């Protein structure tokens, strides 16, 4: 297998196990590349990529842009705040206008679930979903699994708990798909109000007691509470959330084993995770960020190689 089964990366749901293995194997090579004195390869010098961010992003946007530049692609950036979207232009029109400038690939973040799938059906370009509403964030899930593989040797058979706001999280859904595809056991943990009603139908364990969840797992992926997506109160106060679902050093030290702590960022220090945990050796948060560049290089390289000349 040296080719992806898909022409777009719209979600982990559309990938198979071999795709993930190929992405990881390719990312291994790119990880070596980005640790060289000169961190750039000329592979994509004839590819132009548009980064369309209809929603705020720091890490993902920088990571994608860096990955594209490390591959020598030409990059154009767009964020909806300073664009004609505000003047009433539709998504297809915006994208088609950009594509008429001969763009080969689109990396898009959008607040609406399914925006990537919709776009892939209507425009001629390879689409990478960089997060669509509360649906999927495939590159984040790939880099999370890749970081687990790097830290623990393999993903298969590992127990991973995703803690926090599962309801509003695209990271959670993509992670559940990715981890299950690789044979890991997944549990979600959070206040009942932030767990989707039929989450158990995805074949994940559900736990509302954080201590029990942490005692069960090898890896805990801590999610942020997405206040910006909440129109109503899902829990009484941030203080109460922290008391029940925040990870601190004392809690980790009281467990029988040392577990690995992950966080997709941005961290709300003192809410879902305390500073001493975020900065401890158990946390691989900054490794995740570094791996993000390698994973995105791999995804872009593999998709770009399927674009016909």
């Amino acid at each position: 297998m040296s080719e992806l089964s898909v022409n777009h990366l719209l979600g982990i749901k559309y990938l198979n196990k071999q795709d993930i293995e190929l992405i990881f194997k390719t990312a291994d090579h790119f990880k070596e590349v980005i640790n060289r004195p000169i961190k750039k390869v000329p592979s994509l010098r004839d590819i132009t990529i548009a980064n369309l961010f209809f929603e705020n992003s720091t890490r993902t946007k920088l990571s994608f842009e860096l990955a594209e530049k490390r591959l020598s692609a030409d990059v154009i950036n767009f964020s909806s705040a300073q664009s004609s979207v505000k003047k009433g232009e539709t998504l297809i029109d915006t994208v088609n206008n950009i594509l008429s400038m001969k763009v080969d690939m689109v990396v898009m973040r959008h607040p609406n679930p399914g925006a990537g799938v919709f776009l892939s059906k209507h425009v001629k370009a390879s689409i990478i979903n960089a997060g669509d509403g509360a649906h999927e964030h495939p590159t984040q899930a790939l880099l999370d699994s890749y970081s687990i593989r790097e830290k623990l040797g393999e993903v298969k058979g590992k127990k991973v708990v995703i803690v926090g706001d599962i309801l509003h999280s695209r990271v959670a859904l993509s992670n559940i798909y990715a981890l299950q595809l690789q044979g890991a056991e997944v549990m979600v943990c959070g206040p009942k109000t932030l767990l989707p009603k039929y989450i158990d139908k995805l074949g994940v364990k559900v736990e509302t007691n954080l201590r029990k969840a942490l005692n069960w797992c090898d890896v805990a992926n801590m999610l942020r509470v997405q206040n910006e997506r909440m129109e109503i109160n899902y829990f009484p106060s941030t203080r109460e959330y922290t008391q029940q679902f925040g990870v601190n050093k004392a809690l980790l030290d009281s467990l029988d084993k040392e577990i690995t702590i992950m966080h997709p960022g941005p961290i709300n220090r003192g809410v879902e995770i305390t500073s001493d945990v975020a900065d401890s050796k158990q946390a691989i948060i900054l490794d995740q960020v570094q791996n993000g560049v390698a994973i995105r290089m791999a995804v872009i390289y593999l998709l770009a190689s399927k674009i016909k000349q």
Partner: protein
Amino acid sequence: MHYLCTPDTFGLYMSQKVLLNAKEVNIILHRLACQLIEKHNDFSNTVLIGLQPRGVFLADRLAKILREDYKVKNIQLGHLDITFYRDDFRRGDKTLAANKTEINFIVEDKNIIFIDDVLYTGRSIRAALTAIQSFGRPNEIELLTLIDRRFSRHLPIQPDYRGRQVDVINNEKVKVNWKEHDDEDSVYLIEK
């Protein structure tokens, strides 16, 4: 020379001719090792870099001969993958799959010897010359190949050390086999 007729995977008959047998490969490897010593002495400022995927077998073998048979102590050996520097990305049907690069030493100001099994169009070497720049600025770069396919170059690249020069037409393929990987040391000319 003996000729063989064997069915290939498509059921077509192709003929293959032995260009070099194990004994001849061995003699050539020792000659190449001696030529390297003549030029590079104790290898204190010289490094060997095998090109992925097939050049690494030759590089590993030469390093072994230099270490064990000629007692050269300071052999530094690396593997360089050129996939991301190739000029045919998106030109073929298949995704170009990468191999491992392992260069655990500094190449700045070093004398580098690129090692590959067959020199054909010269495009891999062109890619390797670009790739190595990512690791620093070497003092000089030389090229060693086991087989030099004459008259088939697309670029002005010639080897500094060659095992055997052969005249091969374009629909023929030169296949180098290594004991470690293919059960025997040999070089075949395969006609399709």
